[in-house]
């Protein structure tokens, strides 16, 4: 056996041994930066891409595409109201260790068809899996209902979205979707992941990030209010007094 023949065998063996890399994602984003300006009212992001293959499309289970966008995670305190002495007051509270400030899952079919539980647990794809809650205080017996409340409340304001059947896939190769991000976004790096699955199993994944930033006046005011709070306070007072005075002066001018 010559050397070149041995090499050819090796390459072929590698191909068989690494089915994960058989299909790869090539991705495009309509924008990889979201600028929060004064007139910011949410943003629509177009995510599109293709599946790169060295071999023909495999037989069997069809290809499914799952796309997730996650805002920066933070600890949130969830409180529950109870009737005490005739009025509704916050009583029990549970700290949810990490809940993304924004989370969207877009899939090409139904999520439960595209992904099995084991893979979901491993990659933390579905909305409930993306939230990490470690422990609840001893006196709270139904900690799960607090996590559900986070999903329900954030879902109601479009911060958590499950967009099933919203990714279009052509010829098992080209895919695209669009995700609408609401106006109430926090700043940070939004992790964007694309999973290719077959028969509920992840065959390939790709990760990139969308940067969400305040810009211009928004950026300047926000930074000033955090880093130089005293100056910001004085400035707020001065601007407010000037604006109030100015408005009444203009009004008097109109009457005269």
């Amino acid at each position, binding site marked *: 056996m010559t050397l070149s023949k041995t090499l050819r065998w090796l390459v072929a063996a590698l191909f068989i041994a690494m089915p994960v890399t058989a299909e790869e994602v090539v991705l495009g984003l309509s924008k990889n930066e979201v600028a*929060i*300006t*004064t*007139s*910011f*009212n*949410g943003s629509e992001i177009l995510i599109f891409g293709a599946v790169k293959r060295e071999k023909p499309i495999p037989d069997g289970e069809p290809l499914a595409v799952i796309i997730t966008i996650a805002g920066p995670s*933070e*600890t*949130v*305190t*969830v*409180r*529950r*109201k*109870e*009737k005490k002495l*005739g*009025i*509704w*007051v*916050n009583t029990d*509270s549970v*700290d949810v260790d990490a809940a993304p400030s924004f989370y969207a899952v877009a899939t090409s079919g139904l999520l439960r068809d595209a992904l099995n539980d084991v893979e979901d647990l491993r990659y933390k794809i579905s909305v409930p899996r993306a939230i990490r809650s470690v422990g609840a205080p001893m006196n709270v017996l139904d900690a799960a209902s*607090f996590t559900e*409340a*986070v999903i*329900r*409340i*954030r879902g109601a304001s479009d911060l958590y979205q499950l967009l099933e059947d919203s990714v279009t896939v052509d010829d098992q190769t080209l895919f695209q979707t669009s995700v609408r991000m609401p*106006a*109430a*976004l*926090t700043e940070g790096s939004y992790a964007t992941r694309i999973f290719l699955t077959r028969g509920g199993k992840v065959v390939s994944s790709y990760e990139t990030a969308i940067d969400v930033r*305040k810009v211009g*006046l*928004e950026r300047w*005011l*926000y930074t000033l*209010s*955090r880093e130089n*709070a*005293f100056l*910001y*306070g*004085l*400035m*707020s*007072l001065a*601007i*407010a*007094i000037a*604006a*109030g*005075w100015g*408005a*009444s002066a203009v*009004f008097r001018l109109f009457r005269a």
Partner: protein
Amino acid sequence: MQIYLPIAEVSVNAFLLLGLGGIVGILSGMFGVGGGFLMTPLLFFIGIPPAVAVATEANQIVASSFSGVLAHFKRKTVDLKMGTVLLIGGLVGAALGVVVFNYLKAQGQVDLLVKLCYVLFLGVIGGLMFFESLNAIRKTAKGKPATRKKHNWIHGLPFKMRFRVSGLYISVIPPLIVGLCVGILAAIMGVGGGFIMVPAMIYLLGMPTKVVVGTSLFQIIFVTAFTTMLHATTNFTVDIVLAVLLLVGGVIGAQIGTRIGVKMKAEQLRIWLAVMVLAVCFKLALDLLLQPTELYSIGVGGH
């Protein structure tokens, strides 16, 4: 036109804010009150976070009271000495109020505290004002002028001081306490406290009506400015963009309101103000008593 508020981190319609400012401005111009007690709950309703609403409203009150107090200085209807005594109490109260506010915010009880304060004070003040003006209307209908009791237990307290502009010789303790209470309320409720202070000055301290408004505005400006600074430096919750939009609407509304107010009788005005105060009180009380549709709420950050 949507506008993104940099500190509140929400996007709202700029015209909605101008309109809200305008309507509250008209009411405050008509009745001679600051309108903070109406604006702060309205800001809650349109989705501004309560902490931001309270802090920003304090900033707005400074500005909207500023042109008012200048007018009163020109007419010499400000009792500077009384104002200063009220102010000392007010500054201490505001500092206490912010400490209580921040403590309860960490405990998740700040909404409850703010709402309970509103229900209690609006209920008491609204009720008193309603019956008082009803009596006044009845008396004037009979042809007798309304009279007020001039002397009460307040005049027995020590540390007396002469207030020339108000024509009073009373102890400094009651004005200090009135100032203190108003300061606490300013910090917790995001109000100027005029709706509490004005009745207290008239009925408790026995000050002449013509110096009451100017003096209370004088105290309110400094206390709310102090509150604004405290919120801005400890909570970072003053939103200048929100404040300016509310203000521009508010100042214009107040000018219109003042003109409407001149055409109405004082007793009638007061009874309408009382009805309005009671209505806000009733709405807030209902929120506390009825089961909310969402029992859970989310606060950012751990304990």
